[in-house]
């Protein structure tokens, strides 16, 4: 019996070690917290302002908590500021909606992300002087019937969109008669939608059209800033650097530094950025790229990133399931303690049970994505505790899994036949002995299919942790997709990897289950040799 559990334990341990090992260098890097670094928040996914690359070419700077690098116009500006402040620049890669929380919670010192200083944002954070002025364009396909629009009303009937949470999206209202589509997460998604024809165009800045044209010459940008009746406040047509409200000193020095960068230099930096931004293979490299299958070239460029993503996903899922299992076990045991005889203990148990059911209800009843955002940004904002995002993710998955497994294990305990409790009681075992030696081994064995299921769910559901920018498999996938613009093949590859992971894990757990189940019949001849120790053999003779 014991050897069976040992077998299982070794397997689980091996698995965990494996996934920790792949992430080790990563967590090590996280542990080093150098106050000298200037942490700059950006999407690293908004060319040419900022993007992610796998090496440090063209003076790219490292992205915190990963082996990747960021570059772009924003990074170049950040580096000038960092140089003047004598601080090393590090990029905090964050989704667009997470930028403000990252700043206010102290996870970043600056936002340099092509962000405009709108009145609404200025309520939450301060903005520097602009570091770039831009004009607005509607980007459509060359052959679109809106390609020759001359005035705002020419967009009548056009399906237009813009990035979620930007004022670009509000600008669509000024294009009278245009059909405003739901806002999209990032430019990559809008480019893909435009090419696939689900939208007629999207509102963006001129730089977006410049960089888009480099990868796809079949698009056209129609400047709308100068069209009659178009109105955008100065705040909206510039991009500025976001700084947390209390940090007045930093705001002052950033403004002083920006004043030293002349317009000519800014234009030069932007041109550089547009040239350096990652390109899709078949555009510039021509022959050589075409002869190589896409999968191979993608693997060459992003293989390391994908492996790290797989490692992170496995780490999150396995640690989450194992820790969640122990949380669930503890909660499940407490929730099945028989009612004590003394009133004091009875009330204490009632109170604890109430707390536990609140825990289960809250974590089963809210999406993990929301929990992640609340815990990661909430803790930082209200308690000024800056948890490492990997640690935060591990905690969230564990707590979440614990809530599910608590009920599964409670069910397992309850469904263990009453006779097993009674037989153990009749031998004089204490409650703890009954639980640990008789009930729990049976309950856990019966729960194994559900635990496997939870593991599989975790492998897939950790993808929602991309909200706090944990670079697990899905996050890696969306980064690759947005840089290569190969949405379908990238996500197809990512789903194949997910399937391979879940399939393998299912098989492993099926084997374990089968092993624990044993055979239906007892073969007397085959088993006789195993009978006890030599001493027992003597006793038998």
């Amino acid at each position, binding site marked *: 019996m014991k050897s069976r559990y040992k077998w299982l334990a070794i397997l689980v341990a091996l698995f965990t070690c494996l996934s920790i090992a792949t992430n080790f260098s990563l967590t090590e890097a996280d542990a080093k917290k150098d106050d000298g670094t200037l942490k700059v928040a950006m999407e690293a996914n908004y060319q040419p302002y900022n993007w992610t690359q796998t090496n440090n070419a063209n003076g790219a700077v490292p992205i915190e908590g990963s082996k990747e690098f960021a570059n772009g116009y924003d990074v170049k500006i950040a580096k000038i500021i960092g140089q003047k402040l004598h601080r090393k620049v590090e990029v905090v890669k964050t989704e667009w909606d997470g930028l403000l929380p990252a700043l206010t919670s102290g996870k970043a010192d600056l936002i340099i992300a092509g962000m405009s200083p709108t009145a609404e944002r200025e309520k939450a954070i301060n903005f520097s002087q602009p570091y770039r002025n831009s004009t607005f364009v509607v980007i459509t396909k060359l052959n679109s019937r809106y390609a020759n629009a001359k005035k705002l009303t020419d967009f009548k009937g056009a399906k237009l969109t813009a990035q979620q949470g930007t004022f670009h999206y509000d600008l669509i209202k000024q294009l009278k008669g245009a059909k405003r589509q739901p806002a999209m997460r990032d430019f990559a998604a809008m480019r893909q939608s435009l090419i696939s024809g689900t939208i007629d165009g999207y509102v963006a800045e001129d730089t977006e059209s410049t960089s888009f044209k480099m990868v796809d010459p079949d698009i056209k940008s129609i400047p709308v800033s100068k069209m009659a009746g178009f109105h955008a406040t100065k705040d909206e047509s510039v991009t500025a650097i976001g700084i947390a409200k209390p940090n007045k000193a930093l705001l002052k020095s950033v403004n002083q530094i920006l004043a030293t960068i002349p317009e000519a230099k800014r234009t030069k930096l932007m041109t550089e950025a547009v040239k350096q931004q990652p390109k899709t293979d078949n555009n510039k490299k021509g022959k050589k790229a075409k002869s190589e299958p896409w999968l191979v070239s993608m693997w060459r460029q992003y293989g390391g990133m994908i492996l790290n993503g797989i490692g992170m996903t496995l780490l999150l899922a396995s640690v989450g399931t194992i820790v969640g299992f122990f949380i669930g076990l503890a909660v499940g045991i407490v929730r099945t303690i028989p009612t004590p005889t003394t009133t004091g203990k009875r009330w204490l148990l009632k109170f604890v049970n109430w707390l536990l059911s609140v825990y289960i209800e809250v974590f089963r009843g809210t999406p993990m994505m929301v929990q992640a955002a609340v815990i990661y940004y909430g803790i930082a904002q209200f308690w000024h505790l800056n948890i490492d995002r990997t640690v935060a993710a591990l905690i969230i998955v564990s707590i979440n899994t614990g809530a599910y497994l608590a009920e599964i294990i409670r069910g397992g305990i309850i469904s263990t036949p009453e006779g097993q409790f*009674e037989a153990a009681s*009749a*031998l*004089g075992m204490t409650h703890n002995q009954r639980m640990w030696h008789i009930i729990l081994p049976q309950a856990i064995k019966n729960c194994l299919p559900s635990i496997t299921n939870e593991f599989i769910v975790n492998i897939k559901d950790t993808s929602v942790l991309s909200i706090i920018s944990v670079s697990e498999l899905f996050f890696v996938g969306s980064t690759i997709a947005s840089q290569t613009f190969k949405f379908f093949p990238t996500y197809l590859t990512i789903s194949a990897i997910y399937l391979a992971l879940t399939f393998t894990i299912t098989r492993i757990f099926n084997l374990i289950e089968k092993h624990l189940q044993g055979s239906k019949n*007892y073969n007397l001849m085959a088993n006789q040799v*195993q*009978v*006890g120790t030599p001493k027992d053999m003597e006793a038998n003779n």
Partner: protein
Amino acid sequence: MTESNETILSLKNIKKTFGEHQVLKDISFDINKGEIATIIGPSGGGKSTTLRCINLLEEPTAGEVDFHGKNVLAPNYNRNIYRAKVGMVFQQFDLFENKNVLANCMVGQELVLKRSKDEARKIAMTNLKKVGMEQYVNARPSQLSGGQQQRVAIARAISMDPEILLFDEPTSALDPEMVGEVLSVMKNLATTGLTMIIVTHEMAFAKEISDQMFFISDGVITEQGTPDQLFNHPQNEKTVKFLSNFQNN
């Protein structure tokens, strides 16, 4: 059937209610050391509840259970030590499904009696041999027949060296051809001087093995005495009626 006059266990005015339903109205009896007592009676009369009240699987609503003259229901009485001394064999065997035959017979010894692994194994093997199951030490309960499981359950119970062994309808869940093997194990046990209280429907067996018999019906003992008194000279009309059903057996 070595019987002394030392009272080992006595039930005093035991009452047990489940909700509104009073299952045991007033049960009192004494069991002497080495005595074999059987409890018979109609289904639902309170036989099993009486037995379960003895080792506290059911908490009596009122009354006393005295073991060596001490009330085990007293608040500071160590019930787990008492239970280790009062073994129980269940109708459904209730072997630990997660343990093999040998481990079933060892776990109680190790955990409750704190015996060493070697000692526990030795005692378990001796008792498994007694019940003829020594060849199956590595088998899991689900691999055994009902009769085999019940024999292991008996070995598990006697491995604790109990002073009293309770049997709750040990053959009722067995196929007819397996009843014999279990009864013969019990008959062998009876010769060792172990005190046994048996709830059973096997009248011939009860008649043969018992020193004392109780007829429990509607939560009271309606008749008690030697097998000869109950079977040949029943006083109570319920006993007469009940036994007439078994005349042909």
